[in-house]
């Protein structure tokens, strides 16, 4: 008897997974990275707004970080499953161009985006937000923050800094590019070698590094200029601050684009337009913790402690694509000497 009940429970348990798929007449498929569509990210807010506007259904798939999403799009190239990929960053841009993935579209709203963010002159991808990497510090443990990259080499920071690994994480890679932009290909390795004694750990990703920082393990972490705004907005504290560097900060821009082979080109274009509209852009600061590319309204009050760097040293995207693996190779060898 008990076995019968048990087995019918088990059957019920597994077959609830099968739900009849009601074929939606208008459905747009969007691929994005996981944290964009997490409960805390912008996804739940902006996707719902778009569904209300377009009277269509969105199917959102978020299989991992942007590297995974791009891999997936490339794998599916012959038989595309998605209409839009949202969340490609500048260091992945050239790679995606080399696979010829995009259906160009020039949104009329793009005119509102400042010229330096419109990186792709062929309109294959459209920027939707941007941010700067920065060293965030705990002001309770450090009175005078470092003022430039050179300050970080000071022996007083011995084993007090945590950064992310350029080989495995996007802020880490940006840090590497930052130092190359500032010190050139001749000087960056030298800088890193001097920085090494001050690094307590070089983590696999942002999560571990920032976790170590907020748990008090280190007073300085590589994060974003907007990180302090989170703490002000949700924790009502200005204890964590971003150190503003004289060299300027390396910029990450995030893009979205329509994928070749889409059967819903009109709807996809509507989404790109929507992405630049206020309904999307206004949600970005407090959910994705990045700056919107079009400022439809003033930034939230908590952004007063997210400094907008005056200058942003940059590397040419084509050069990044060409040299990246060489740089990473040289970096890992220099650092393990």
């Amino acid at each position, binding site marked *: 008897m*008990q076995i019968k009940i048990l087995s019918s429970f088990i059957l019920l348990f597994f077959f609830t997974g099968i739900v009849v798929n009601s074929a939606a007449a208008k459905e747009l498929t969007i691929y994005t990275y996981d*944290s964009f569509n997490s*409960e*805390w990210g912008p996804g739940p807010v902006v996707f719902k707004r778009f569904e209300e506007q377009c009277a269509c259904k969105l199917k959102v798939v978020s299989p991992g970080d942007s590297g995974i999403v791009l*891999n997936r799009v490339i794998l599916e190239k012959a038989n595309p499953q998605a209409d839009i990929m949202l969340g490609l960053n500048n260091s992945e841009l050239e790679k995606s161009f080399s696979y010829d993935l995009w259906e160009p579209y020039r949104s009329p709203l793009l005119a509102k985006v400042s010229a330096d963010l419109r990186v792709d002159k062929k309109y294959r991808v459209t920027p939707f937000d941007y941010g700067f990497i920065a060293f965030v510090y705990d002001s309770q443990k450090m009175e005078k923050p470092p003022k430039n990259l050179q300050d970080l080499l000071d022996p007083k920071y011995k084993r007090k800094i945590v950064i992310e690994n350029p080989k495995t994480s996007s802020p880490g890679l940006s840090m590497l590019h930052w130092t190359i932009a500032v010190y050139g290909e001749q000087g960056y390795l030298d800088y890193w070698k001097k920085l090494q004694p001050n690094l307590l750990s*070089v983590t696999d990703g942002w999560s571990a590094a920032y*976790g170590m920082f907020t*748990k008090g393990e280190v007073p300085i972490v590589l994060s974003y200029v907007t990180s302090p705004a989170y703490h002000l907005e949700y924790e009502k504290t200005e204890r964590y601050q971003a150190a503003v560097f004289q060299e300027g900060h390396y910029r990450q821009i995030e893009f979205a684009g329509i994928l070749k082979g889409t059967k819903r080109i009109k709807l996809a274009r509507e989404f790109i337009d929507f992405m630049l509209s206020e309904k999307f852009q206004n949600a970005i600061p407090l959910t994705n913790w990045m700056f919107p590319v079009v400022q439809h309204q003033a930034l939230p009050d908590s952004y007063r402690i997210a400094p907008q760097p005056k200058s942003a040293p940059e590397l040419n995207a084509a050069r990044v694509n060409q040299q990246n693996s060489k740089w990473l190779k040289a970096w*890992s060898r220099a650092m*393990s000497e």
Partner: protein
Amino acid sequence: MKYHPLRLLQISALLLLGAGFYWPVLSFLSGSNPLHPEESFLQGEFFLDFLSDPWNLRVIAFSLFQALLSAVLSILVGLPGAWLLTHYNFPGQRWFRLLTYLPFILPSILVVLAMVLFFGNNGWINRGLMALFGTEEPPVLFLYSLSGILIAHVFYNFPIAMKIIGDQWERISEQYLQAARSLGAGNMKRYFRITLPLLLPSIGSAFVLIFILCMNSFAIILVLGGGIRYTTIEVLIYQLARIELDFSGAASLAFLQGGLSLLGMAILLKGRNRRVEQKSVIKNWLPEKLRNHSLKAWFAVCWIILILIFTLGPLSAIVLDSFRKFENGEWIYTLYWYEKLFSWRENNHFLSSLWNSLRIGLGSAVISSFCGLGLVSLIAYKKGWQRRFWEVLTLFPLALSTVVFGVAWFHFYQGNLAGTVPLIYVVMAMHALLTCPYWIRVVLPTLESIPQQWHIESKMLGKKPLEYALRILWPWLRKTFLIAFFFSFSLSLGELNSTMMIADDSVRTLPLEIYGAISGYRFSYASAVAVILLFLSVSTFLAVERSLGHFEIFK
């Protein structure tokens, strides 16, 4: 050949393994993929190039070295545990055992943060010691170096060694030892000459499993190793696949890494022909032995305390973290995150993830058990090359980097299954493939400790195979099955990498929820989800244990 239910099980297990692992992976690697249409992935040139660089050779050497060291240490820590659990009973024993398995369930990001919270420069231990001695500098500094890597790996893996070895130990007949004692062999001599050799098969089994796991370890190596000096093959695979988007390189390296693990296994795995008899050891009641001032008992207590510090410490750091919130620059203690978890709100992903995790975990553990049963019957009692072949064949899914497995599977899924099979079953099958090798490792030593003679005798007595299975195998293996099932379930709960690639929102699981919360700065929320994850697996363990109790009627 006569119809045999086992044959059916063996065939379906092999089909699952072949169609679910070897076919997708091999066809992907041999070139049927859009990332590299013009040539196959595995190019001799790549390997020559890679292996001619001394730096890469150092990476390979370090990967092997740390895995070897971690496995040896895990076994050294696990051995006293195995001895303790087979020779003593003590209050809270069951809970102690369960506790040691728990780290396994947690996603690696939380294990890493838990270690930092507890052992870090500003962690509990150091703050406690600093307050005690009034010093300014943290006295315990083993994190962020090789010892950090090793300690985290031992923390993770010693329970495997304890479980697998302990199971075998329980079957060692006291008669041998008594005979040896009467011949005047001392304690040490008895241990090294009799007990240890009898335990060797299980030690080998545990060693192989832990070795492979540590070869594929990733977050622990980078964060707790300090990040730069210690690089492993897995880190390079990750770099190629995720950052440089050079998939052919990643796949080739994954193949190399898997091959190295296999080579290690082929050398280590040996056929076993030792006979052990069932003879239940009479266990001593630990508190009583303590009162008698038994030196061994005191050693046991020291070991228990050490393990409690190492396991309970980081785990309770997570539990505590889930009850606190940072506000106005201060930490306050609150139920806020739990209220948030269970509050009804529009975007509550937590509850659906909980449901998915539970379904996928149980489903994959059931598949894994059947698949494992089929495969284990192919390995058991075999010797020589035949045995090695089956063992290596069943272990390979574990040795291949999950990053590459995920992509290969995704390609396979897109081409063959998408639209016909609901995604959730695909995920269950994938998890089952990854957890099945554990199942086999856990069950195999115990199964083989059953004298083969019994089978022959029962045949001679005209008993049907099913009757033999129910009357003899089941009672003997029941406890082991439970643990194996629980391992599979727990591993599935924590699994993330391989399924990420094919996942969509219908199969969101709790680890994904944890990562999502952390990337949205909600670290304490993530801890709260982790506590639920732990709670879930403990209650599943107890439920399965209870329901297995009902099957006693077969005895």
